[in-house]
Structure formats: C-alpha cells, structure tokens
C-alpha cells in the first residue's frame, strides 16, 4: 500500500507520460502520415482502421483530454490530500479509461488483428494510474 502523497505523484508523472504519448499520436493522426512503430508494424494498420475515430473524433484526442484532466486533478489534489471528491473523480475517470483501454485492446487483438505500440503504451500507463489510485484507497480502508 502506498501513501496518498506518493499515489498522487505517481498519477501526475504517469499522466504527463500518457499526455506525451497521446499528443504524439494525435499529431500524427492529424497529418494522416505513417506512424513510427518502435516494435512491430501495427501502428499504421490501427491508425487507418475504422476504429481509429469515434463519432469523427480521433481516439488519441480522447487520450489527450483524459491525461490532461488526470494531471490537473492531481495538481488540485496536491493542495489538500486526501480530498474525497477529487479521489472519486480520479477513480471514476481512471476506471472508465481502463475499461475503454480494455475495449480498444480487444479490438486490436480480435478485430483489427494488429498491435499498435503507442496504444498499448497508453493502455499500460492508464492501468498504472488506476492501480496507483486503488492501492492508495486500500490504505484509507485498512
């Protein structure tokens, strides 16, 4: 179990990491150019698939909004630790993000049948953020 302070710092650092990954992908999606894939070659397949946008919105843009919100919440949270409402918002947003990440990874594995390195990185980051929140919540209960 980790302290609220450490949990909040972890959320902040990983949100900035996620923000960098999502911004990079958002920029590349906007240019409609091939995305550099450090491992494998699935980035382009995923980018050009019909699942790369939801209601016309590129998926990486949702990532930018999510990570920016999480980073902002952790800045606000650092002012008063622990703050019930902020914790609830963080837990709610990260649960939704991980759920959405599971859905997108499912699409990559079973529907698109290609793996996008950056998307998987973002998924792992969102899982780390979720764990950082959940683990610190246990501390309050025990």
């Amino acid at each position, binding site marked *: 179990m980790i302290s609220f302070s450490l949990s909040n710092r972890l959320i*902040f650092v990983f949100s*900035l990491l996620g*923000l*960098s990954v999502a*911004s990079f992908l*958002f*920029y*590349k999606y*906007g*240019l*409609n*150019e*091939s*995305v*550099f*894939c450090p491992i494998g*070659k699935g980035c*382009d*397949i995923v*980018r*050009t698939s019909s699942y790369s946008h939801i209601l016309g919105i590129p998926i990486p843009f949702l990532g930018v909004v999510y990570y*920016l919100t999480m*980073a*902002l919440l*952790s*800045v*606000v949270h*650092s*002012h008063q630790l622990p703050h019930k409402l902020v914790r609830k918002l963080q837990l709610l947003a990260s649960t939704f993000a991980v759920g959405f990440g599971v859905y997108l990874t499912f699409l990559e594995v079973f529907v698109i049948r290609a793996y996008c390195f950056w998307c998987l990185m973002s998924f792992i980051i969102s899982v780390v953020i979720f764990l950082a929140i959940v683990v610190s919540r246990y501390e309050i209960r025990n």
Partner: protein
Amino acid sequence: MKYETKILGAILIITVVILFGGIFLLSRNQENNIFQIDYSRGQKIGSDSAKVRMVEFSDFECLACSAVEPYIVKLRAADPSKIQLIYRHFPLSQHAHSSQAAALAEAAGEQGKFWEMHDKLLETQAKWSSMNDATAFFMDLVKELGLDEDKIKQTMAGNVIKAKIDSDVAEGNSLGISQTPTFFVNGRKLDLQKFEDLDTLVEQELKK
C-alpha cells in the same frame, strides 16, 4: 497554496506549452516552407513543364501508402501537361520487404514497366508483407507482367538500383521526412487531414 501544488502546476504548464507549442510550430512550418527538391530524380508521369509537380515519398509496404493509392490514380488520369507525378522511394527500416519491393519496381522500370509493377505491389501488399520471404511471390509478379526474370534478378542484384534508392532516402532524410507517404506539391509539404484532400489541394494549386 502548498509548495508541491505550485511545483506540480508549473511542471504541468511547462509540459503543456512544450507539447502543444511544438505541435503548433511543426504544423505551421510544414505549411509555409518551400522545399528544394531535385526534380531530375524519380519515376515520373506527366510533363516537366507541368504547372503542378507533385512528389510522393513512399514505401511499398506501408499501409497508408496503399490506402492513398485510389486518390493518386485519379491524379494519374489527369492532364499530364498540367500535373506531373513523381514517385520517390523511402523504404522504412521497420518494413522487412520494402527495400526489396522498391528494387523490384525499379528493375521493372528498366524494362519499361515501373508503374505496372508499382500498382501490382500495392494491390498485393497484404499478401507479401506478411511473408517471411517474399522473393518467390515477387517473381510471380515479374512473370505476370511478362518481364524478363533473369534480367530482373540481375538488375536487382546490381549496385545501380541500390544507389538510386539510397539517394532517394538520403534526399528524403534531408527534407526531414520520417514517415510515408509524404507529399510535396510544388515544393510545399502537404499537411493532409484526410487523403481525400489530396485531389482538392492539387486542384487549388492548378487554379493559382
């Protein structure tokens, strides 16, 4: 306000400024810069005196390159005295067969069938890109196009084609290309939001 809140807030603001400022500047530079391109190189369709000269840096194994092809085909059918299309190689290192495919297309070009091989390679991309060794499949394409197989093998093994592809890559690198397809219209690097915009941008350039 707590000291930590100030520090985290400052880090967040700096990160956001760097990320979004960088994206803004990169996008703006791409719009305004006129790049000096060597028009003597590459495989061409259309006149050297055409009003619009479009250069495509491409990779036969890149999925986006095959996705953009229907829009290129439209431009290929346009008036060759007004629009010139130039194909330049930019095989990406993460693609296992793209250099071999580029060499094959150039070797076919030596027998006057570059564009026929170009089309075949993009049409069949999904098949050969997943193979461990695509040589036999490529030779089937050679036969299909009625090319001299021995000559193709000889040309592909030679240094002339390798040097040609390497010089395309070198120029691409000097132009700051890192992905494919990258298009230049009259020296201006295109910032395409969607491939459909390609035809519109070329039409706009024609009207200038």
